[in-house]
């Protein structure tokens, strides 16, 4: 029992670290992008300000039980995902609960938050929420395919589905990273990351500057503070997952932050450079070349690593 309390305490620590880092990261990214566009941009601690400001509001408007629970489920999804991914390899504090399940659990649990949020926004009664969610789910179905293929390729390569063991196998320097040993899988997964982070060209889901209504306007106050918190934590969880699977994991926090920042830069830069796809274009995009790359990754892994 006490062991679980200790673990719980460690979990709180790692979630807090991830939240702080996530909020900081979004601020850093926003300021960098602004500078590259010739603006000054928001301060790097804007994320914190937003969360606390919203949480401090006196009233909130709800459309029903699901609406109320939506952001809560979303945050649960984000924190849960983080807790299933080992943040630092070999660390007791930041090891999280990776022994609760393997990569399949994580892939499916990502859906938890999304579905919860979807149901919440849907009860809001706004038609644009429904449109956005539909697009989000369709795009999810599309970009999951190359990612699933990449994961299968990893499973063949490392003969395990456990994220912890995959990280463990990459601890022999850069040459042992999946990036180097299985580049096809990495490429397929990175393209999938573009879809999942929701930057251009795949930001049709939220469609900023286009749809000023929907979940972002319906949820306010406490709700939106949870959602913003989740954006930080969930983003951190995804980045840590990618780092663990493809880029050798991390054994200390500094390496973690540098690597996740680098990974995050990829969709940000792509997003800054490209315009937006329509939703059907985006679906078709993922089901063509990235899927082929994924299939190639599987065949490659089968050929190379299944020699036994």
């Amino acid at each position, binding site marked *: 029992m006490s062991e679980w309390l200790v673990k719980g305490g460690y979990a709180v620590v790692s979630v807090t670290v991830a939240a702080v880092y996530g909020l900081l990261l979004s601020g850093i990214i926003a300021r960098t992008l602004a500078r590259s566009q010739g603006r000054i941009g928001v301060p790097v601690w804007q994320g914190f300000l937003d969360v606390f400001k919203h*949480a401090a509001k006196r*009233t*909130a*408007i*709800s*459309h*029903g039980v*699901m609406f*109320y*629970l939506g952001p809560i489920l979303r*945050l*649960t999804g984000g*924190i849960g995902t983080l*807790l299933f991914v080992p943040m630092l390899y070999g660390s007791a504090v930041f090891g999280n609960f990776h*022994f*609760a*399940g*393997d990569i399949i*659990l994580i*892939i*499916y*649990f990502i*859906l*938890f938050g999304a*579905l919860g949020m*979807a149901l919440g926004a*849907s*009860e809001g*009664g*706004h*038609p644009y929420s*429904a*449109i956005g*969610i*539909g697009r989000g*789910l*369709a795009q*999810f*179905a599309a970009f*999951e*395919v190359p990612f*699933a293929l990449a994961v*299968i390729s990893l*499973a*063949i390569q490392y*003969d*395990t*589905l*456990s994220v912890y063991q995959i990280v463990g196998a990459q601890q022999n320097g850069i040459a042992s990273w999946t990036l180097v040993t299985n580049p096809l899988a990495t490429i397929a997964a990175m393209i999938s990351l573009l879809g999942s982070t929701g930057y251009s060209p795949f930001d049709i889901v939220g469609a900023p500057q286009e749809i*000023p*209504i929907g979940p972002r306007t319906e949820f306010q*106050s*406490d709700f939106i503070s949870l959602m913003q918190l989740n954006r930080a934590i969930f983003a951190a969880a995804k980045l840590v997952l990618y780092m663990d699977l493809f880029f050798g994991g991390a054994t200390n926090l500094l390496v973690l932050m540098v690597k996740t920042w680098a990974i995050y830069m990829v969709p940000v830069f792509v997003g800054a450079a490209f315009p937006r796809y*329509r*939703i*059907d274009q985006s*679906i078709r995009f993922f*089901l063509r070349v990235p899927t082929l790359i*994924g299939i190639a990754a*599987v065949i490659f892994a089968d050929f190379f690593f299944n020699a036994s």
Partner: protein
Amino acid sequence: MPNPLYIYVLSLGSAFLLTLFHRLDRSAASLVFLGTLAGSTLISALGLFHLMGGAASVEVLTAGFAPPLSINLRFGLQEAFLSLAVNLIGLLGGWYLLAQLREKAQALILFLMVFMGINGMIMTRDLFNLFVFIEITSIATYALIGLERDGRTLAAGFKYVMAGGLASSFYLIGTILAYHLTGTLNIDGMIEARGLLDNPLGAAALVFLIGAVVIELEPYPANGWALDVYQAAPCGIGAILSGGVATGALAALYKLLPLLQVGHLPVLVSLGLATFLFSNLLGLKQESTKRLLGYSSIAQLGLMIAAIAYLRQTGHEGLVPLVVGGLFINHLLAKAGLFWLAGVIQKEQWRDWSVLAGNPWLLLLFGTLVFALVGFPPFPGFWAKWELIMQLAAGGMYGWMAAILVGSLLEAVYLLRWLGKALRSETQEETQPGFSGLAQPAIFAILLYATGWYCAERVGEASLTSLLPLVTAAYLFVIDRLPIPSRIVGLVSLASVGVFSYQVLPGLSGLAWLFGLIFLPGGMLLIFAGLYREDVRQGFYPLLTGMVMSLGVLLQAQTSLGFFYAWELMTLSSYLLITLGKDAAEHALSYVIFSLASAYLILAGFALGYAGSGSELLTGLQASGSLAPAVLALLALGFVVKTGGFGFHIWLPGAYTESDDDFTAIISSIVSKAGIFGFLVAGIYLGDQSVGGLDIAYLVCWLGLLTAVFGALMAVLQEDAKRLLAYSSMGQVGYIVAGVAMMSHLGWVTAVYLSVNHFLFKGLLFLAIAGVIYRTGTRDMYRMGGMIGRMPITFFTSLIAIIAMSGVPPLSGFGGKWLLYNGLIEKHWYLQAALAFFSSALACLYMFRLLHSVFLGQPKLKHKDVKEAPWWLIAPQLVLVGVILVISLFPQYLVQPISSAVEPYYAATLHWAGNQVTTDIGHWNGFLTMSLVGSVFLLTLSWMLLSSTRVQRVKQFNIAFAAERPFTPETTHFAYNFYPYIEKSMGGLVRPRATRFWNGLSEWTHSLAATLRSLYTGQAQTYALLIVLYLILMVTLMGGV
């Protein structure tokens, strides 16, 4: 033991005396007439009783001399049976036609002569005497055909006499030649002297003899005259023709068959089967009731010819009573019954038979007769056909086997199409037909059940358990007719299934026990839910109880026959239950056609298994030897078709959607598992096989996953809630099929786990949607909306079901997905795993669509007063939710029993350590996951609840709508055409190609039938020509031997 001669004495005596009685008093004449027929029947019955008790057969020698100087009549067991059957039909037929016959004494006399003649044909052992009796029968029949004295009947009678004349001429020529060669007219003597016929002249004699008898039996294509007769003659005469006169000809054939060389017999089999196949094919195009029955009669006769010839060819004469006797009595009782019923209904076209709808007793009668003809259990035709197919397979005659199965399927199509019309009343006219003339078909219907039971006993499958579904359905049917609320009947049916489960379930073990949990207690739960309907549904509870019990019988089956028996009972009852839906007629028909096709594939598989192993037991399939790949291929295809595999799925959406809402829950969550169970049984005993280098299981796995993808994709695009769930079922069962096809420990654990899960959440979802449809009155999702406020419990249960179905942790669906991927990767089937991922992601789309369109979004004004679903529906849903939650928290409670059930077949690759399960590559701890997620959720929730922010609930239109006010819910609730971009990006994948294929196949079959039908020009000259050509054909085929 009465002397059979008295039959002739009685008939002739009465015939002579009838003229006198008729002049005196019509009623006296009728009495004498019926008395004679009754007397003949009694004599036959007593004779049969004595013979079955072991008495010796009676040999009647005229004038006391021995043959060949005298005429020999034999009254043995077979003759007694045939004679009883014929006299019974004569008695009932005479009673049926009494009103018409008694007008003229000649009619009464002729009727008596017909049956005397048939008795003679049955009993005589003399060739020329046989000719005499044939002539007596023909002339009397010809006269009776013209009973109504209008142009059509007289023309038909003429064609009959023309054909009969030709046949008789051929027969005489044959007799002359045979007598010349052998010197005797006695059949037994001729059989002894058969060697004398082994020359061209003898061959010619035989061809003429046999050819004449075969022509009397109306073979295709030389049977146009017979069809015209069936169509024109009054129904009572049609009954006698198809039941009585044909029996005589059949008896003649059976007697003469030993004269043929063994090499001639395959010719007869082929001719008989050609008649069977083509007559049933042509029956598809038929509109007239009587002509349709004529096609069916001809087909059955062809089948019987083939059966007799084949059994003699393979030396299995001992099976003749079961096979030919069974087919014969089945045909006689059902066909005569149908003709008599047709005479009462008086509708020229079978499409007008909807006058039967709403009259349960008449429907029971009609249904009994039709199902007996189609070959469903428990009727004799089922057992006979099974035995015949087994013998054909054992003899390696796969082509003939296929011909019989295809022909049976075609017959089922047109018969069930007809039944479907009768079950639905389309017109307002529901005149109840008069009751006179119904006693005779009713008696025959009862006899069908009795003879079916007798055949079952002979085959060895008549156990109490296998009888229970029928008995229960029978007494529930009777209770249903009483003026008590339908809920009482429902509770009685629930109790019956409960008692049955209590008896059957403890006796099962392993996989059968697990499936038994789904079928029996699960079935009870869903039957309970069905009590929410207080309106009367004719026949719902009897059929439902029968179906659930037959599933229980299926699990207990030890022999392939027992398995098939239960399978057909399930098909029959589920078909009838689907027809209860409002617009379900055509969908029920396509359901039953595909189900029968799958049943016949399974039958073929079992037959090949029997051929390979020689064993009737299911375990005997293991020893199928070189036939094992073919057995597995056939069984796998059959079960795939039954579960709605991709390409064979076109019946599924219609059947699920249009049946009653609570029945859809049952058919989707329970009945589909029967196919899975069957597939597992096939896998247990056959393992994996490959055909021509292609691994069957590998192909089936791909098929299953393609079904999953396309099912999900099609579900995404649906507007109708039930149709969406139907496609979803198709997809989920695709996963299960893929699981079984993995043929590994993980694969089968996945399959059974997913089966249980699918029952839980699909049953739940269909019940929830049933509640919503019941309250809102519509099935279209876009017409609903905002139901969360009105039906919160339903929303909660649907939510749990959908989260479970999507595979999102921590609920139980995730376990199934985890097992599936581990299994696929363990088998190195990587691309299949990716396909499964894709399908799983697609599933989220339609799940969200369902929840959003129905429960969330904007509520409509007209649904302001919608109440929560009735408690009959809610309670089972809550039970199912409870089970889902328990299994999610402690997956080992489900997985470990399944694992130990699969362990005997495949060694376990799952390892449990407390709450954690590991495979070679993966690990999962369900309890920990649930606890983690639960605690995080509770923490976040408490943070929200404790926060000082005041949360205010606002009205539905209080949304930020960009400076506009939402006008109506209809224009604000986004639900119609929810995924237009899916249609755009992936829509090309889901064009209705399979539907077009099957429609095309059906069109092509009909065109073929129409073309082949053009031989029947309606002119006697054509028919005469065809008869002569047919004889020439027989000469060609048989002369070569």
